[in-house]
């Protein structure tokens, strides 16, 4: 398997899927120049009909995506930063998420919305939101969050092939991560979490940008506390792999959920809620959430970085669960 960077894996998936289906189009602000690199080269390869810069008009961008998808295109709108989703939110929340039901199933909306999310880079409050919660609560759109180059490719392919509106959320700080990526048709099915590391004492449930750091924390837990932590990468938030969540905690009896969302009504909250309900009988200890506290993101690193989940925060949360074994 060739090794490549996260962003290249996304780029490859886009290119392969556009090759596969000539009705697939990509639109968005500066998708031609591609500031993140994910859409680079696609204009040259697929031409100006299928790769189009749009004006700064997010309402129209999302609305046009719904309309073009309803009329036979497979549409990939690129929103750039997640915060710009809000500017085009009507066509997402009122159209993409609802048209299928409202039409009695007549309409199919094969849309893959790309947006880059997350903090840690001093981009300040308007360029650092993690929009998992509000998209997941819509219920009418699928939400996928890749964590490594290989599932970035696989999930992008699945997202594009899905006949539902699907958000593909790029972890902002992870574009440079390198990893092995399968060649060709590697589709990661939506709705399947993956166990990144097996463990027997504790389940660390996470997704996207937080996965790498959670794995580091798991290693530290092994060495520092002798705790065997399983790491479950959700991969897709809608549909959510409830079975895998319950199975993991069934094995370990303890869970910490790590999520870059702001805490209130986060995906972490929802996973914890599932455990408090369907997983209750498995639970040997409180379910903790490692999230961003309920504030907007500050600019200065000294104020921003401590707000983000970190291996440190995970380790100290775990310590509270295993007071005796703590060295």
């Amino acid at each position, binding site marked *: 398997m060739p090794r490549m960077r996260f962003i290249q894996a996304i780029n490859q998936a886009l290119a392969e899927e556009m090759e596969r289906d000539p009705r697939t189009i990509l639109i968005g602000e500066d998708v031609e120049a591609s500031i993140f690199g994910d859409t680079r080269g696609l204009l040259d390869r697929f031409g100006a009909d299928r790769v189009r810069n749009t004006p700064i008009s997010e309402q129209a961008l999302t*609305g046009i995506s719904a*309309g073009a998808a309803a009329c036979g*295109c497979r549409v990939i709108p690129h929103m750039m930063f997640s915060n710009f989703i809000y500017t085009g939110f009507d066509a997402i929340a009122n159209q993409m998420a609802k048209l299928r039901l409202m039409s009695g199933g007549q309409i199919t909306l094969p849309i893959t919305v790309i947006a880059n999310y997350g903090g840690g880079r001093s981009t300040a409050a308007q360029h650092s939101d993690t929009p998992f919660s509000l998209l997941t609560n819509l219920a009418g759109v699928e939400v996928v969050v890749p964590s490594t180059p290989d599932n970035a490719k696989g999930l992008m392919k699945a997202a594009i092939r899905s006949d539902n509106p699907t958000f593909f959320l790029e972890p902002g700080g992870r574009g440079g991560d390198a990893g092995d990526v399968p060649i060709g048709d590697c589709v990661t099915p939506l709705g399947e979490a993956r166990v990144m590391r097996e463990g027997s004492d504790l389940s660390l449930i996470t997704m996207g940008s937080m996965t790498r750091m959670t794995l580091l924390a798991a290693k530290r837990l092994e060495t520092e506390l002798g705790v065997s932590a399983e790491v479950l990468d959700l991969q897709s938030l809608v549909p959510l792999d409830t079975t895998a969540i319950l199975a993991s905690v069934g094995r370990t009896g303890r869970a910490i959920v790590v999520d870059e969302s702001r805490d209130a009504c986060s995906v972490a909250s929802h996973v914890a809620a599932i455990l408090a309900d369907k997983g209750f009988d498995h639970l040997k200890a409180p379910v903790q959430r490692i999230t961003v506290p309920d504030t907007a993101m500050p600019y200065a690193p000294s104020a921003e970085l401590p707000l983000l989940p970190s291996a440190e925060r995970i380790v100290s949360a775990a310590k509270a669960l295993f007071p005796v074994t703590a060295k």
Partner: protein
Amino acid sequence: MAASASNIQPDDGVLIEMYRRMLLIRKSEEQLFRDVKLGRTPGQVHLSDGQEAVAIGICSLLEDRDQITSTHRGHGHYLAKGCDVNAMFAEIYGKAEGICRGMGGSMHVADYSKGIVGANGIVGAGLGIATGAGLANQLEGEGRVAACFFGDGAANQGSLMECLNISSLWRLPVLFVCENNGYSEFSPSGTVTSGVISDRAKPFGIPVWNIDGNDVVDVWRTALEAVDHCRSGAGPAFVEARTYRYSGHFSAEAMVLSTPYRSDEEIEAWRARDPVARTRALIIGREAANDAECERMELEADAHVEGAVAFGEAGTAPCPGTANRLMRAGS
């Protein structure tokens, strides 16, 4: 560009067909108003009685494969696009046999197979969707046109400007049709709308027609030019049609408002310019049909509506699992 310069006329067959369809809309909506009072509909309705000529005049020039986007006031667009009246009543009655299986209701009656890319409860939302349909059409290259119906109130949504800009830049086959009925809910246009709406398209180099929306011939003639403009690949076009809705904003307004927001005189003045009656007068004047024939057309429309009521009433209530099943493709 002002109102159409040409004086071309629809031939008798076209005129009569438009009249028939206008009658079907009018009779359907009058029935729906009664149905709401009778409690036959679970929700309220927004009627377009008085505005029939716009929907009919425009849609007469559209083919089945052409798309439209409709509004919360969409019964007329639905019927004008040739969709099934039975399935509309069943929908509005909340039945599984409805065009949207009872999932959408009055604000969302739309037959996608006939090119209606949604009737929309969000004012202005059709603008982006129609522009997207225009993009799909352009890429397909077969000359399909997407028409977007929207109100004078919707013209104040910024999305209008965005879509005018993009459709002009990309020369998309999108026909913007502003149904200016003088009100945005209970606000007279002048209190919420600055200037002339169709002027808003001009900075984008989009050709504009400003017409009498109660004159079906004027609408038809304008559509002939405007649709052709779009279909030929010349880019978008913009029609503003002045019209009026007799029944007001929605079926419960008399109950919820403490004071009336328009005068009886105003309503009467518009009734004197009724598009259905004018079309009938034109038909008689031209001798395209006589009184008895026109009468028969009315009775036909009544019969259609009666049949639709029966169909709707006989329909079944959708079962609770329906929503879950229909939410996502592949589920």
